[in-house]
């Protein structure tokens, strides 16, 4: 690990401007997370154009803090409204809402906040230690291995996305296909541009992000706007948990934090998977399992520690390999790209100062979360009173001005709306847009890797079999695809039968 880069990242983050943006970002993330129907990804996508004019350290710090803030904010609605603010807070409803019904909303929120804080700190430390280690391993990778990593990234994300594997892979492949639009850099051939000059530079990744993640959410809010709004439970007790309670919960928090980090490491899985996994483990380890679902604080601590730990975990493959672990980290990677930093293993070397700034920003945001959470959790309840219909229309307005701000072109606004409509269609078809966005990011990486590899191999596909690392990575990619096919089930059937009879 290059300590000078680590220190540069730390000093970049610890400026007054950045600290102010981190606190503001955490607060914004907290409010966004609290509102059911809004996600961290949407907030990040909407605010990405703002960071264009910022210094990279400031922009990244703000985005990281929104991500961290929203991860906790989701639990506020889960505990007080019985509606998770974000999908990652769904497991928190099980014990958080019964606690608020018993007049212990403050206690539940306090446990959630401290568990989120410890989970976040753990993941920040893991990110700081593991990303450079993994990065130092992959820094020697050539085009063949980079191509294999990109293939693995897209197949794993596609395979693990919500719904069926076919849908996830379809979404990823579509992203790759869209990534070829624009001028081909090696032959200067315009591809699928329909002679439109605006498409010659390709489809702007941020435009697709805003459209795919924000417009469908706004339209869904409008669809459900006629439903009665739920009334939030009141917070009547103290927010800060007792030391003895926290001490008793510590093994649970540490275990759940570990689960969150490990889950975040796997591209395509996110806070929702981690929080259910941690909840189940907390229940399995509990002495009295019957209290789970009735208002057990362990049932609040586990999912909250896990979903905040996912933040750092998901950033490890993003930073070390250039493969975003989730749609939110894809946006953080997009923020790096906005500043001319391309995804790949050189993130930790050539652009180490900015990358370490992002890592430290996650740590600082976690500390900020504790302070902002203690001060503003009660105030954030009022955000839930804003009518969904208004929020939806405001999101559309922000999407339009935000997409215009990227290149000052009306064409981009039209493109964003088209992506928005397509995202809405994907939502109706229950197909995740995350692999598509990741396909858009990894498309150029994959194409460059492929062309360079073919040059090395004198046009022979055999070049991909000459590198043992590439063979292993491509083998895993193949297995991740095959495991969804009937062939795999047919191959597994005899083993299953033997297990049953044995």
């Amino acid at each position, binding site marked *: 690990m290059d300590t000078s880069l680590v220190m540069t990242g730390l000093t970049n983050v610890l400026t007054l401007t950045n600290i102010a943006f981190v606190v503001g970002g955490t607060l914004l993330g907290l409010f966004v997370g609290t509102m059911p129907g809004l996600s961290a990804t949407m907030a990040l996508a909407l605010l990405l154009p703002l960071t264009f004019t910022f210094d990279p350290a400031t922009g990244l710090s703000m985005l990281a803090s929104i991500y961290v803030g929203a991860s906790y904010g989701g639990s506020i609605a889960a505990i007080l409204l019985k509606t998770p603010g974000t999908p990652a807070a769904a497991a928190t409803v099980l014990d958080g809402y019964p606690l608020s019904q018993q007049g212990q909303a403050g206690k539940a929120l306090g446990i959630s906040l401290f568990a989120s804080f410890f989970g976040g700190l753990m993941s920040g430390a893991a990110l700081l230690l593991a990303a450079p280690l993994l990065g130092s391993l992959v820094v020697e990778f050539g085009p063949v291995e980079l191509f294999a990593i990109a293939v693995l990234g897209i197949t794993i994300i596609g395979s693990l996305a919500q719904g069926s594997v076919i849908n996830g892979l379809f979404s990823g492949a579509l992203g790759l296909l869209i990534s070829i639009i624009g001028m081909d850099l090696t*032959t200067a051939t315009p591809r*699928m541009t329909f002679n439109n000059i605006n498409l010659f530079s390709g489809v702007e990744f941020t435009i697709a992000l805003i459209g795919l993640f924000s417009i469908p959410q706004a339209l869904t809010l409008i669809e459900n706007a006629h439903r009665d709004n739920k009334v939030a439970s009141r917070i009547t007790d103290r927010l800060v948990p007792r030391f003895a309670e926290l001490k008793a919960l510590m093994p649970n928090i540490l275990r759940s934090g570990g689960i969150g980090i490990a889950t975040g490491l796997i591209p395509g899985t996110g806070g929702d998977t981690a929080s259910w996994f941690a909840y189940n483990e907390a229940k399995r380890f509990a002495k009295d399992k019957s209290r789970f679902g009735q208002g057990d604080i362990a049932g609040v601590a586990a999912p909250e520690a896990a979903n905040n730990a996912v933040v750092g975990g998901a950033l490890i493959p993003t930073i070390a390999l250039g493969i975003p672990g989730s749609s939110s980290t894809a946006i953080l990677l997009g923020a790096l790209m906005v500043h001319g930093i391309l995804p790949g293993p050189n993130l930790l070397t050539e652009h180490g100062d900015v990358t370490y700034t992002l890592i430290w920003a996650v740590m600082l945001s976690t500390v900020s979360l504790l302070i902002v959470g203690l001060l503003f959790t009660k105030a954030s309840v009022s955000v839930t009173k804003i009518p969904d219909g208004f929020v939806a229309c405001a999101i559309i*307005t922000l999407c339009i001005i935000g997409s215009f701000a990227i290149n000052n072109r009306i064409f981009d606004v039209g493109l964003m709306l088209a992506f928005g409509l397509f995202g809405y269609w994907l939502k*109706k078809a229950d197909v995740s847009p995350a692999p598509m966005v990741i396909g858009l990011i990894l498309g150029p990486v994959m194409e460059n890797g492929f062309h360079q590899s073919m040059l090395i191999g004198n046009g022979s596909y055999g070049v991909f079999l000459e590198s043992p690392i590439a063979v292993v990575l491509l083998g895993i990619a193949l297995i991740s695809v095959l495991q969804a096919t009937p062939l795999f089930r047919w191959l597994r059937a005899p083993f299953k039968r033997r297990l049953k009879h044995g």
Partner: protein
Amino acid sequence: MNVSRVFLGISGVGVAVLFYVNALEYPDAAAQMPLIYSVTVGLLSLAMVVSEIWKRKIASGPDTVGEDEPQATEEEKGRMRGKVSAALVFALAVLYVPLINVLGYLIATVLFMVATLAMIRTVSLKVAAIGIAVLVTVICLVFIAFLGLPIPLLPSFV
């Protein structure tokens, strides 16, 4: 059967064919990846359609609406109303974009918000008025004053 997914699969095949046919005209180096990607998208789209049809075959059980039918119809009506609202708001958003150049950002945004909120009819007049004022002020401050976005604030004919 998820009809949206079936149509998505069919459209996917169409898109894949379009990209494939176009890629055949490119030089070899430029055509390689589009050809690989379009074949992949085409195959996955087909797989998506086939799996939906297969699922429908398996799940062809008896219809069990029975006594809950009136309630289901009411719910269905609400859902339909929501979908129509969403479609109309999206159409208004499409109209709003060219209006910015004609009426200026301020008037176009206020008109868009008023029209959409009036259509949704779930926001009170007071909340809508305060909300629109706050939203327009924040956008003007952040995007126009702070970021210096070159967007016309007032009508072009003023």
